[in-house]
């Protein structure tokens, strides 16, 4: 069987694939005295259950998965460290990696977030056979330049965030006489007249928060007009200009939405926008399945879910939304146990484990072709999200697609253009300027 000789890099690459195939699901028979310990930093798995706050750690999905892995692979121990799920996890990983003292495996946000750490990450393409690759969806989230066929793959997309859409108050919507299932706007003008109807009826139509007002709506419309992630990538690398009449038109019209939304969207938290919805003070808010989790206990079946209207009927991508594989699993390139680390990742992505994950309902949506999550979910909205998330119309998070500095610039300028302090053209030119500065520097 496979011995510890697989520590040399070349043999690892070739043998890694074979090792990977052989390791699952039967197990890895290392020599008993060569016990391997993998450190795994999780920035994405959940350890909280709002309905039962005294649950023991061992009852959560990832701990059970680790137990199963250890049983199947005697000789490998996985030590889990749970990180706060905010940008500090990148600070921690980066600092530790400078001294090559970080974990063997980590799970963090995909796209430019973790790609900025690529100097410390082991390229993973050679560890996967084409079949293994094909059954997993979302590789554009873990490669540079978002080319799924690129050899520079740095991680494994480990789940989907679903598709961002509108969540709405069914009763208030019915009062206005709108049934989203049958009568949903197909372009911007239709959308505005819907908002107008709601406003006349007396409620604030939109309750947005400081990420969603910009990325869920505006950047979605821009993304669908430029043709998805590829187009966003072009904006990021300079092949396409921001300050283009088509985009100016989108931004200018989007600015008009302030008349229909609760004041202060550009600095509100998610809990603030949820508060509006829960108190019947707004009709629509944007978000993903987390909105449902937070608001269901109060709204129950009164919560509706519908996709964000298209900006125009001739946008290349229709009826989608942003979202997709927001998480990635990856291996550090200074890890001394790369084979075992990859084995663990493959274990987590295996069909059996994906079923467990779906059953637990505690994690992200599935992104594999051979397991259908909807069979295991109980919540209707969750099932719909699962179906949506793997459709090609779901555009991968634009803020994960653009360089970090440019994302920061968009966030900053977005606040100014939304509140009318700068014009649509000024906004887009500023983005062009920042992008050019980043490329030129």
């Amino acid at each position, binding site marked *: 069987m496979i011995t510890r000789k697989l520590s040399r890099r070349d043999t690892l690459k070739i043998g890694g694939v074979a090792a990977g195939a052989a390791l699952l699901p039967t197990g890895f028979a290392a020599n008993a005295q060569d016990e391997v310990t993998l450190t795994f930093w999780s920035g994405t798995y959940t350890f909280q259950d709002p309905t039962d706050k005294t649950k023991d750690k061992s009852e959560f999905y990832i701990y059970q998965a680790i137990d199963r892995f250890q049983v199947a692979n005697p000789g490998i121990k996985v030590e889990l460290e749970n990180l706060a799920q905010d*940008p500090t996890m990148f600070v921690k990983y980066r600092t530790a990696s400078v001294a090559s003292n970080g974990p063997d495996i980590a799970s963090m946000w995909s796209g430019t977030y973790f790609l900025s750490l690529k100097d410390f990450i082991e390229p993973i393409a050679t560890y996967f056979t084409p079949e293994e690759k094909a059954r997993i969806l979302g590789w554009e989230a873990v490669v540079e330049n978002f080319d799924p066929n690129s050899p520079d793959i740095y991680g494994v997309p480990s789940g989907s965030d679903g598709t961002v859409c509108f969540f709405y108050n069914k009763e208030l919507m019915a009062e206005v006489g709108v049934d989203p299932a049958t009568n949903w706007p197909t372009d911007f003008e239709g959308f505005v007249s819907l908002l107008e109807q709601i406003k006349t009826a007396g409620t604030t139509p939109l309750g947005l928060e400081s990420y969603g007002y910009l990325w869920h709506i505006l950047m979605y419309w821009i993304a669908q007009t430029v043709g998805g992630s590829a187009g966003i990538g072009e904006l990021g690398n300079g092949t396409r200009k921001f300050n283009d009449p088509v985009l100016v038109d989108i931004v200018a019209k989007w600015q008009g939405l302030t008349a229909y939304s609760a004041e202060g969207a550009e*600095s509100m938290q998610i809990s603030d926008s949820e508060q509006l919805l829960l108190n019947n003070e707004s009709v629509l808010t944007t978000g993903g399945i987390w909105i449902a989790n937070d608001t269901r206990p109060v709204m129950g079946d009164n919560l509706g879910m519908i996709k964000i209207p298209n900006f125009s009927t001739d946008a290349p991508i229709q009826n989608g939304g942003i979202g997709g594989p927001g998480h990635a699993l990856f291996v550090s390139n200074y890890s001394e146990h790369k084979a075992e680390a990859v084995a663990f990742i493959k274990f987590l992505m295996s069909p059996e484990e994906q079923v467990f994950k779906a059953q637990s309902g505690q994690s992200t949506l599935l992104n594999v072709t051979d397991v259908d999550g909807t069979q295991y979910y109980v919540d209707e909205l969750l099932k719909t999200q699962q179906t949506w998330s793997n459709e090609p119309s779901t555009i991968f998070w634009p803020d994960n697609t653009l360089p970090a500095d440019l994302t920061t610039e968009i966030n900053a300028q977005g606040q*100014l253009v939304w509140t009318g302090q700068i014009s649509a053209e000024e906004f887009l030119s500023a983005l062009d300027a920042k992008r050019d500065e980043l490329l030129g520097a």
Partner: protein
Amino acid sequence: MSATNSPAPGMRDPNRESRVTMGERESRPVFTRPQPKISLKRREQITGLLSILPAFLLVGIVVWWPIARSFRYSFTDWNGAKANWIGLDNYRNIFERGDFWTPLKTNFVFFLSIPGILLISLVVSVLLFEETPGWRFFRSVYYIPTILSTAIVGMLMRVMFSPRGAVNGLLKAAGFDGLSRNWLGTTSTAFVVLIFIFYWQTLGQGVLIFLSGLASISTDLIEAARLDGANWWQRLTQILIPLLMPTIGFFFIFNAVYCFVGLFALVYTVTNGGPGFSTTPIDLLIYRKAFESGDLGYASALSVMLFIIVLFISAVQLRFFDRRSTE
């Protein structure tokens, strides 16, 4: 008187020396007379240096050595994994991009707000000193905001100052509808909120320091001034403040340094540097460059520039206060 006769431990016995050169009766008195002044002074110097040595060792190794490395990295394009020498490119970029001066303005706004909180702390301390009913309770309570971590302060303030938050609610209830607004949405009001938080957290610290200072001032002095006809304000400005100069100096310098290097956590949690970049202080920029862009070399260069500026400002302040503190 024992000091003059018995030599200090470790010092050569001058009396012993004289026995060796016996024979020179003329020089004997010179050698038998011990020279306490010089040896004592030298001893004192050594004691002094040894006293500060452990402190300097710890700070030197744990803080200064990494800073020196950081300084070296500021001349490279270090990203954590590789570092190539690029000379003064980082510094050139700082000046060309204007990255540096805009955030510095934010820091300056906070810096200029220090005299305000200084005055408020002084006045409150004096008021507490009057021992009005409940003063002990108030003194305890004012320190609470100082103890709170930025995490809770940021969260609380965001909730309270949001357009539908408590502050606007209270203003409306009190009839001041016109004052309620989107606090975090425009730069000027965002600064008002941030400075309010800064004052709120610093009041406790100021009261703590100044109350103690006041407790030590002789009441006769103040009584005499009152009898001379000085009113409350004159007593404050012409007697209390001059006597409190050393503690005022500490408060001022400590908070000035905070305004330049410690704001990051607070701004990050309350406004995240917005709207736009208008409330981004320089240390938040350094954090972003270091950890979000991975541009550690450039961040190091920014830190060096910041250090030089703050050093200059602190030196000026120290000189100002040191002069006024000594008699």
